[in-house]
């Protein structure tokens, strides 16, 4: 049980594709608030990156800024190269191979 959390979270991203925050929270058995905190943490550590988190310094110059900023922003996170590397590393480790 001590595993897991972040490892399981990254593990569940192995399938690829898009997961909903609520679906993933249910799968991991945690509240959405805790999952959000975990995603932010993983993003801070470079395993995920937050999409549409504004483009710092870009929006001011962008003609389409008003189109992006209206309505309700949807937050989304994507797995980074570092994140997929970690998943791949875990796979090797699990298969008993030597990780270099």
């Amino acid at each position: 049980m001590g595993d897991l959390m972040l490892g399981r979270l990254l593990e569940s991203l192995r399938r690829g594709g898009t997961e909903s925050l609520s679906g993933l929270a249910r799968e991991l058995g945690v509240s959405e608030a805790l999952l959000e905190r975990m995603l932010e943490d993983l993003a801070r550590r470079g395993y995920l990156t937050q999409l549409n988190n504004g483009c710092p310094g870009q929006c001011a110059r962008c003609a389409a800024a008003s189109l992006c900023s209206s309505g309700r922003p949807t937050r989304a996170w994507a797995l980074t190269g570092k994140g997929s590397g970690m998943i791949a590393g875990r796979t090797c480790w699990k298969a008993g191979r030597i990780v270099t």
Partner: protein
Amino acid sequence: MVERVSQAQRTITVALAGQPNVGKSTVFNLLTGLSQHVGNWPGKTVERKTGIHQHNGTIMRIVDLPGTYSLTANSLEERIARDYIIKERPDVVVAVADATALERNLYLVAELLSLPVPVIVALNMIDVAEQQGLHIEPHVLEAALGLPVVPMVATKGRGLTELVEAIARLAQGEVAYAPSRPRIREDHRAVLEELERLIADAVPEPYPNDWVALKLLEGDEELTRMIREQLAPERWEEVHSILRRHEDAVLAVAGGRYEWIGRMVRAAVTRPRAGQISLTERLDRVAAHPVWGLGLLLGVLGLVFFLTYAIGSPLQGLLEAHLVRAGADWAARLLAGAPAWLVGLVANGLIGGVGRVLTFLPILLVFFAAFGFLEDLGYMARAAYVMDRFMHRMGLHGKSFLPLFLGFGCNVPAVMGARVVEGERARLLTILVAPLVPCTARMAVLAFLVPIFFGRASTLVSWGLVAFNLLILVLLGIGLNKLVFRGERAAFIMELPLYHIPNLRTIGLFVWRRTAAFIRRAGTIILAVSVLIAALAALPSGELGSSYLAAIGRFLAPLGALMGLGWEMMVALLTSFVAKETAIATLGVLYGAGAGGEAGLAGILGSLLAPSAALAFLVVEMLFIPCAATVATIRQETGSWRWTLLDVALLLVLSLAMGLLVYQGARLLGWGT
């Protein structure tokens, strides 16, 4: 006398820790009142507040630590807070937590518990939590955490006495303090112990040995540097190789904290699953379902088109009849006697071109209102989610198109969305296909032209055209995935917001912003192009047939003939590069504002084009070179003219080839020739 007082009085130091905006300052002000001292942390520009609270002969020196989310060395505030706790060792640390976001706040508590100081949790805003339906049992949380928990409403001063008493009792050792600390994942415990052993002699006072080892595993740069300086080189090599072999230990350390938080919250918090949340869950069983969700999306898209045609199109016809033609007549009367080129410019360029584009307004208003409604309802996020999952199932295991769909409505943000895609090649290819995401300007052209040719089948045809665009996007995506991404997988997590009853004001603002952008475009770029086209159509002789524009058009005519399109339509296509709506403005200029009698431009186009040719035109328009703004963005994002021009050429060939196929295919089927 003085001596007796000083003997009876005991001074303890209490540090207040907590995230920003949890009411920490309010608690500090309540405790210290007027006895505050504001300065700076030594050598730093961060404000340092201290003050005094007296309780039953105990002087409590209160230190307000900077607001922090954790105790890594990420920010100056976090470094100040942890350095203070480690070096000054306050008698008690009060962790002020926001009860409405306990999960977030407990992370800091988890970090504090690995430091050698007694901790009290001040559970602030407990009233707001109750209002939100969150029920927290302070006693259960206290038992689970193994440390004092004091519920508070700091803004009303509630819980302050209890907090002060808890501090005093804890400082005097009157309460049992046996906190349940988060533990590192089992498979890393041996590594942690090994590290502790290796660094044992090198950890300088007053740093706790186990904490430093934990932070090394977490990859803390500041402490790594410190230990490297302290250790003998060969010992450091040993430590370093362990750290390299266990790079994922950071997940084990943080993961242990999350597991701990999850346990604490499960024990002490009950969350009623009623109302909005369960409604959202029920609705998403359909809206976010892999099959039903896709069906619903197609249905919703059809409904939006149906509404646009049922309400917007008749109003557009009325505006055209009463504004454009009446305006042209009025201008002709007003300018009677003026040179022919001026009359042409005003009647055809201004009124026929820009005026006609402005008659789109009712169509766009209905369209924008429908999308604003869906967005505010919370449905658009589901649409992107369902579409993205569909693409994934279609074999798009490569970089997902989610960033593109989040930019749905305009290609400029869609191109920018590709930034998130890692890898130069992958990002480039995502940018190159981004213009295939249908934008609202193209939808507007669609909404104007489709009813002219397809009457009652308009909704179906529009729906089919958008689906065709997406199909091309999927096919290209699959091809690119095979060729370039080689099955590499991308993963996304997206938040599906709770559904809520749409707010009229929000929808109004949404519609207004987009409409204003459209009007600005009509007043600037479309106006300029209309005038240019009117001038080219009138020069040099005043006769359209022998004008410069006709010469350009004739150059394009052979290509147009393959798709059943006259040179006027080809010129319209060409000008749509400037902005998609310009295609209609150009047709307006070319066929004149007053032309076509009662039926207007629609009447002319309806009589000029066979449905098969019209369909070909629409297919080309939907897949054609994106507008100038998008091309400029592609140039900016790729940083290369070569790729930008290649993309333009690719889309040009693709769109014309598809137009040709559709026209010839329709003729072969004997449909609408």
